[in-house]
């Protein structure tokens, strides 16, 4: 047997102290298989060792919450017997290596998290961040990721309905690919991963196990195993067709009461799935590895336990249900093998050819895994104030065109046209609006979904940034007439061992937490991705928020398309003209300093609730939140989408017109109101002390600011649509 030395330990991503800890927990030296298992369970991805203490601060409870963080996905109540199951997850590093497969398997993985819980997936979303468009890798990464996301979702037949796509040089060496899945389940038919009972069959279903994604670990074995060819980690390839079979087979088995616990094999495959189920049930588990269906010859227990082959699940069955379950998986042409049983030993016991190859107390891998309170530093408030007078003057029209034609603000149709958005026939609002709307099948109600992030804001002042993304997400949900219910979050950060990065993490979380608490918008699931970046160059902190809201009655879905000319345009919320970290400043002057806009949570809540109530009373023709780019960009998005123009008055009081039209003050909405509803709308807003302005009217053909600019909407549209085609 191979001896464990410091080199092997290091290759397994464990430090000396952690190794000593392992020896103590085992009361002996681990063998290579055991070391591999520790390395998988104790790494950041599975153990959350750097983030755990901070994550505890997030609000996770609420009337609407059925299951918060800790399971495969979060579950919320949407009334009647319906529940929504959702989660977001990152697949950043694999996507940088192989964009198509990395993104595809990211989608596959998050889908499994959702259907493991008994939900039929009904929508997919994604948040993708790339380096500067001029970076030599960006174009092929972009194309690969987009077709990978589409390739998987289209084939399995779940609509990809919303997302965000951003470009920033901070991601040159480390792109972000976050995928979110949303499913629908019956409230009393949710499945969990907690094992119960002794001597129950542990069943392996799905694809066969290959040598996919066995990381640093296998390199170690290559070096020390003299008769082995060099074994590099193998890229995981997604197989959406098999996932479709697995999805249908699992949902079929879930119709009755055969399943005690179920867990998908995600990162650290068989290891984490078996340990997690046992750990939650305070049980032991015994696996006979010779029974694991393998794709390659001569796979070792080590490889089987650490393989990250896709499209696999582990199920613990009630007594006597094996044949019934086997029949279902056979119908769908999937492997089904009883590979072990639950025990009362509280150990994970791994046998191969009747010999025990490894045995570890479950506790050592779960509750006794390391937790770190890493050092972190606060981010100071920037003292730099932007003085517009000192900057080169720029025409408002030129700024608008510059922003609308920029990669970040250009229309993303060329992406969303590659995603099947309509399959399942419940997509009432496709990509392009603030949030997508998905009807609950055969019902009148619907959910709204959106993902959002603002890395620039989070970088410059993480607390404000954290608050802002939650609020922006909440606004997007409200803008389509839905009541925001809960969020999931994907926390993409740099190296947590760096105290500044850890500070960004802690402070972003503080902001997220404050906003979620104030808005009663709890976090029900999420994912942390650290170590994004290379050679001491970390990415901007990029937490991504995925929100879900409820539309009780979908008789009159609303979006950001102007509906007719001559309606009144109302701007809800106060405009101060905050340009720090704005798109205006970045696109025109490439200035990176300055603070992001601050959010007043009280205004946020009141403005949002009032807008929602106006929408619910059918007083609003169209709605759009004001976000990146400010008022003028939001207005032009409404115009472009509907091919209707506007006539806007210049601000009466504010000193600088650029501040007024491009400022990124928060908590604002644009509403299109029919003239005959105006009195009612104004009365409603006044009664509730909501600040608003009447800023102009819709008109045919021209996008116009009185005495300042007048452009043909077709021209704006062309400007907004051309970036990718010229790229």
């Amino acid at each position: 047997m191979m001896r464990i030395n410091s080199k092997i330990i290091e290759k397994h991503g464990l430090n000396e102290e952690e190794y000593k800890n392992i020896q103590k927990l085992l009361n002996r030296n681990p063998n290579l298989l055991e070391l591999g298992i520790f390395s998988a369970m104790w790494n950041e991805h599975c153990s959350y060792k750097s983030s755990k203490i901070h994550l505890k601060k997030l609000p996770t409870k609420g009337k609407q919450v059925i299951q918060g963080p800790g399971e495969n996905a979060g579950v919320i109540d949407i009334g009647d017997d319906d529940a929504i199951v959702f989660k977001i997850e990152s697949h950043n590093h694999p996507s940088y290596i192989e964009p198509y497969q990395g993104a595809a398997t990211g989608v596959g993985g998050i889908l499994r998290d959702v259907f493991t819980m008994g939900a039929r997936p009904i929508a997919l979303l994604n948040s993708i961040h790339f380096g500067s468009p001029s970076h030599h890798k960006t174009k092929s990464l972009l194309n690969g990721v987009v077709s990978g996301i589409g390739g998987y979702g289209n084939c399995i037949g779940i609509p990809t309905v919303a997302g965000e796509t951003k470009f920033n040089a901070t991601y040159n060496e480390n792109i972000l690919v976050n995928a979110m899945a949303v499913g629908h389940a019956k409230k009393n038919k949710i499945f969990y991963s907690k094992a119960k009972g002794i001597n129950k069959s542990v069943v392996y279903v799905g694809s066969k196990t290959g040598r996919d994604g066995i990381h640093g670990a296998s390199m170690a074995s290559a070096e020390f195993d003299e008769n082995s060819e060099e074994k590099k980690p193998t890229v995981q390839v997604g197989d959406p067709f098999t996932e479709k079979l697995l999805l249908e087979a699992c949902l079929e088995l879930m119709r009755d009461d055969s399943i005690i616990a179920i867990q998908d094999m995600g990162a650290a495959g068989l290891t984490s799935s078996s340990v997690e189920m046992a750990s939650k049930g305070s049980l032991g588990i015994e696996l006979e590895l010779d029974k694991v269906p393998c794709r390659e010859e001569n796979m070792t227990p080590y490889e089987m336990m650490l393989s990250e082959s896709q499209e696999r699940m582990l199920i613990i069955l009630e007594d006597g249900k094996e044949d019934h379950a086997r029949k279902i998986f056979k119908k769908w042409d999937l492997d089904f093998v009883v590979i072990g049983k639950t025990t009362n030993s509280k150990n994970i016991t791994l046998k191969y050819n009747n010999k025990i190859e490894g045995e570890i107390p479950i506790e050592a891998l779960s509750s006794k895994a390391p937790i770190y309170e890493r050092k972190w530093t606060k981010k100071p408030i920037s003292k730099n104030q932007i003085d517009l007078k000192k900057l080169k003057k720029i025409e408002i029209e030129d700024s608008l065109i510059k922003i609308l034609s920029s990669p970040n603000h250009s229309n993303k149709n060329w992406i969303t046209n590659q995603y099947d958005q309509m399959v399942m026939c419940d997509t009432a609002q496709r990509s392009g609006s603030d949030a997508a709307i998905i009807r609950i099948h055969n019902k009148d109600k619907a959910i709204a979904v959106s993902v959002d992030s603002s890395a620039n804001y989070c970088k410059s002042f993480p607390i404000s940034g954290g608050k802002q993304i939650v609020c922006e997400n909440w606004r997007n949900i409200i803008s389509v007439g839905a009541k925001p219910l809960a969020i999931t979050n994907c926390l993409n950060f740099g190296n947590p061992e760096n105290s500044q990065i850890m500070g960004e993490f802690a402070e972003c979380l503080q902001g997220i937490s404050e906003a979620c608490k104030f808005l009663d918008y709890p976090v029900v699931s999420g994912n942390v991705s650290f170590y994004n970046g290379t050679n001491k160059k970390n990415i901007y902190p990029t937490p991504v928020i995925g929100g879900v809201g409820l539309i009780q009655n979908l008789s009159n879905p609303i979006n950001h398309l102007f509906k007719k000319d001559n309606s009144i345009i109302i701007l809800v919320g106060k405009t101060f003209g905050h340009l720090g970290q704005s798109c205006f400043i970045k696109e025109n002057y490439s200035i990176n300093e300055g603070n992001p806009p601050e959010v007043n949570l009280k205004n946020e809540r009141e403005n949002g609730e009032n807008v929602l109530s106006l929408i619910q009373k059918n007083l609003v023709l169209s709605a759009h939140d004001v976000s990146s780019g400010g008022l003028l960009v939001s207005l032009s998005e409404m115009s472009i989408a509907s091919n209707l123009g506007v006539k806007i008055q210049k601000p009466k009081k504010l000193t600088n017109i650029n501040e007024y039209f491009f400022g990124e003050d928060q908590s604002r909405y644009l509403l299109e109101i029919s003239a005959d509803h105006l009195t009612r709308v104004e009365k409603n807003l006044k009664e509730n002390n909501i600040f608003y302005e009447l800023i102009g009217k819709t008109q045919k053909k021209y996008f116009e600011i009185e005495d300042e600019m007048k452009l043909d909407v077709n021209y704006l549209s062309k400007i907004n649509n051309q970036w990718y085609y010229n790229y």
Partner: protein
Amino acid sequence: MKFSVTVILKKDVLDPQGKVVQNTLMNLGMDNLKSIRQGKFFEIEIDEKNQDIAQQKVDEMCKKLLVNLIIEEYKISKI
């Protein structure tokens, strides 16, 4: 000068295509089929008299576009 290029997934990389095709052929009664792997094939004609240079050009095309070196391997032959 004409070349053929065959591209195939590296060993150990999952081949979902080959898998489905293999099952189907088995179901169609081809029971002595041991294994089938699916890949890509290119027939390339190039305006270049010197075989070395031509082959080098083809190799460049493979590396730049035709082959995904992370998961595939390829073979060039003159035809």
